[in-house]
């Protein structure tokens, strides 16, 4: 009996995983990644940016969340480029090449288009859940 329960749960796990992969992000269609953004994603990983920064609130706590930095009216691309080039009070100068900076910018613009990191109060339902509509 335990074995049967376990098998049922493993099958459920596999089915649910496939459902997540195929339909889990279906209400938020996003343009496919461009070559330059894909390279930027690799730079993001190789420089371990997520150790200090967050995307959608996931990552480190030393620096700010960068999900929507590119569309931020007060900061935006020039602000991000300045940090990437020189570092900051807390951020070391990572000595990035111009190409790497351009790729990172393309990556962050692609992330920005995927949605908003901050959930607005209007999206919270009376049951405490969110309903996010892109």
């Amino acid at each position, binding site marked *: 009996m*335990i074995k049967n*329960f*376990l098998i049922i*749960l*493993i099958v459920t*796990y596999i089915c*649910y*995983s496939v459902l*997540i*992969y195929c*339909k*889990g*992000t279906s*209400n*938020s269609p*996003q343009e*496919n*990644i461009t070559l330059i953004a*894909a390279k930027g*994603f690799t730079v*993001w*990983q*190789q*420089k*371990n*940016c*997520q*150790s*200090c920064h967050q*995307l*959608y*609130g*996931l*990552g*480190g*706590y*030393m*620096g*700010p*969340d960068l999900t929507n930095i590119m569309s931020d009216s007060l900061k935006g691309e020039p602000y991000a480029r300045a940090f990437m080039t020189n*570092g900051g*009070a*807390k*951020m*070391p100068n990572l000595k990035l090449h111009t190409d790497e900076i351009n790729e990172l910018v393309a990556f962050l613009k*692609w*992330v920005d288009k*995927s*949605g*908003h*990191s*901050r*959930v607005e109060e209007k999206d*919270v339902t009376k049951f*405490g*859940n*969110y*309903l*996010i509509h*892109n």
Partner: protein
Amino acid sequence: MNKVFKIYIIFSLVLLISALVCGVLAAWSFQYPENYKYVLPFQQLRPFHVSSAVFWILTGATSSIYCFTAYSLKKKEEIYASIFMILWMAAIIIVFICYSLGKFGGREYWEYPPSINIILLAGWVFFIRHFWLFWKVNTDKTSVYIWMWLTGIVFFLFTFIEQNLWNIDWFRASFLKEMTVQWKSNGSMVGAWNQMIYGTSIYLMVKISGNKSIATSKWAYGSYFLGLTNLIFNWGHHIYNIPTANWERTVAYSISMTEWIFVIGIIQNFKSKLFGEDKLKHLLPYRFLIAAEVWVSLNLLLALMMSIPAINRYTHGTHITVAHAMGTTIGINTMILMASFSYFSKNEAYGGVTRAAFRFTQLSLFIFWTGLIVAGILKGYLLMEKKESFSEAFAAAIPYLKVVLYAGIVLTISLIFIIRQLFRKVNYLQGTN
């Protein structure tokens, strides 16, 4: 007990020390980031801390399972576990060499170049082989811990593979899919290693108390299946704010609320455990298990709060998440693994320096955990309600993070006192049944 296993145990404890020391250094760097960025940049320091902690938990859990299962195997059959241990120790050393050279893979929990995962995966297959041999010869399968170990080992394989799906372009084409799959696998993987560790906890309770019904009761099996259901569905709180399909969030939210059953059950059973087992109170493993139970309750309450999306909106991405991570990895996982290591290395006496170190550990961890929660509440409030900037919220949290730092130092020193005793006992290890 074979030599590879003794080295593996020492290696595992060194990882724990590394996690603690790197954690203190990382907490320190929050106070003086402008100095640290030249000497030990945070993006290099944090991976040492995180990987040490993750590998401590995994090597600690596998050490315990190996120790409690190897007795039933023939000498020559121990080779599979030995290969697993050698491969994992080699892979972990390569991971740290990569970090030292500034080579990263940039994934949360797994921040090293992904090719190293091939060695870890190969090693895990040998560990599965070891457990399978034990499974075949072990005719008594009525104890829940055997099923929990099996589940943890199998689901770790699934989630570890899933964690590497990002190497396939299709998973990387959409950022939302990328993040969803990454955190689905991370969340479920924590559930998988918890199965291995909670299984170990129940095994120890049975062995220490001599009461086999702990592992065969309806409550034990009910908790096991509830835990497994949460492993499969309850990872969504990591990505509530990602604009994925809304049903995904609803499923995670609904399933997470079943954890109230755990809280009620623990509270009902706790009084009898705490006050009814006088003859066990002098045993260090028992003390660690009871401490773990208290931490389970505290962290479950915190997790339940964080699983309500309306609250998660404030807590997500703040130090409350860190409190949850530290509370579970140190308060629950490390306490159970310390109980296990103390049990199988026969370091069971609770008194004198050990008692003082144990008490300091619990007190400092509580201050550490509370400090993180307060810092997180403050940050969430300032960012969401006051709409303050990141740097303003960061500056406001610094005094609380200072408390976290000092508590972390006391926690590290007191745990190292106990670890030091374990090192001494390792040479006297015998097989355990």
